[in-house]
């Protein structure tokens, strides 16, 4: 099986190879702060293991002349219920500079955990982080305006968590069917 995996790894598509090259630059700079490269054929990614360095990594990814990830295409939230963690998955592209793209995962503890905000690096992240907070409840440290963005301000709970139970009433109106 390992051999099959290796062979599959050897025939990485051109797109994945570009992502690998970009990852190698980040790995060289940050070492153990980032995980191994995952050559997912749909969206290659790596994980930020040292969450505290996420903003440094983000700035490096945006500003380094060989990377120039100037566009945060998406920021999604994930609930890893079994691991007891919450996370985000960010997709990056380099518009007008390079054709490479990559995804970055950052995780935090499910209860009371926090992830540094990168809204100062990519302004796109501002509303995306607010949405992730609204749906999953992870706190983004340093976010300039961390309020709910879709749900009403006085909503209870975080709807996309896997153990979410909807509240019985909202302002006296019955919520469940």
């Amino acid at each position, binding site marked *: 099986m390992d051999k099959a995996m290796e062979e599959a790894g050897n025939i990485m598509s051109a797109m994945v190879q570009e992502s690998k090259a970009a990852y190698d630059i980040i790995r060289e700079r940050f070492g153990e702060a980032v995980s191994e490269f995952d050559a997912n054929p749909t969206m290659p990614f790596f994980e930020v293991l040292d969450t505290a360095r996420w903003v440094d990594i983000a700035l490096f990814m945006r500003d380094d002349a060989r990377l120039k990830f100037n566009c945060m295409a998406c920021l999604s939230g994930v609930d890893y219920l079994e691991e007891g963690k919450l996370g985000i998955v960010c997709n990056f592209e380099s518009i007008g500079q390079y054709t490479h793209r990559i995804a970055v995962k950052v995780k935090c503890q499910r209860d009371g955990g926090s992830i540094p905000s990168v809204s100062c690096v990519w302004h796109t992240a501002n509303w995306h982080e607010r949405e992730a907070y609204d749906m999953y409840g992870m706190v983004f440290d340093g976010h300039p305006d961390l309020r709910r963005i879709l749900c009403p301000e006085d909503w209870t709970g975080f709807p996309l968590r896997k153990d979410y139970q909807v509240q019985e009433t909202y302002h006296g109106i*019955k*919520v469940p*069917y």
Partner: protein
Amino acid sequence: MGLLDARISNRNVLVTSVDNVMNWARLSSLWPMGFGLACCAIEMMATNASNYDLERFGIFPRSSPRQSDLMIVAGTVTMKMAERVITLYEQMPEPRYVLSMGSCSNCGGPYWNHGYHVLKGVDRVIPVDVYVPGCPPRPEALIGGLMKIQELIRMEGIGLSRQDALKKLAEKSVDPQQVIDQARKVATA
């Protein structure tokens, strides 16, 4: 609109009851409030536009609840919107009517189970007179619902409560299946 069909004598005198005249006037210029909440609103706008031409029934949307007789709840009512819908309904002058258009506003539609953010039926917050099923309903279905509202107005009278009018309407209703079957028979013959 039986009143116009009746022959008016050459002296332009018409004998009828006040109820009849009032009801005729009200049902011939039913002004809905111009607001839509989701995809049903697209069908509602299509119904207003030239293809289905609601203006031939005297129905055209008003931009203020204070000038409206009818609220067409066209689309998904979220919990956030529910309170706004109540406010809008309260701003409408009486007599006012509510038509719930589409599965979402009837009962929550596809969001009935996992849609934490959706009100499971607008009748939880305001009284509804006519429900139009569909997801979304075709313009013909909406016109059918509006004609049901017109029928309801025709059943009303001075001193008669809305409940009694609805009861009268229910008693007079015919099973549409027979009409459909008959039309099918004619079409296939």
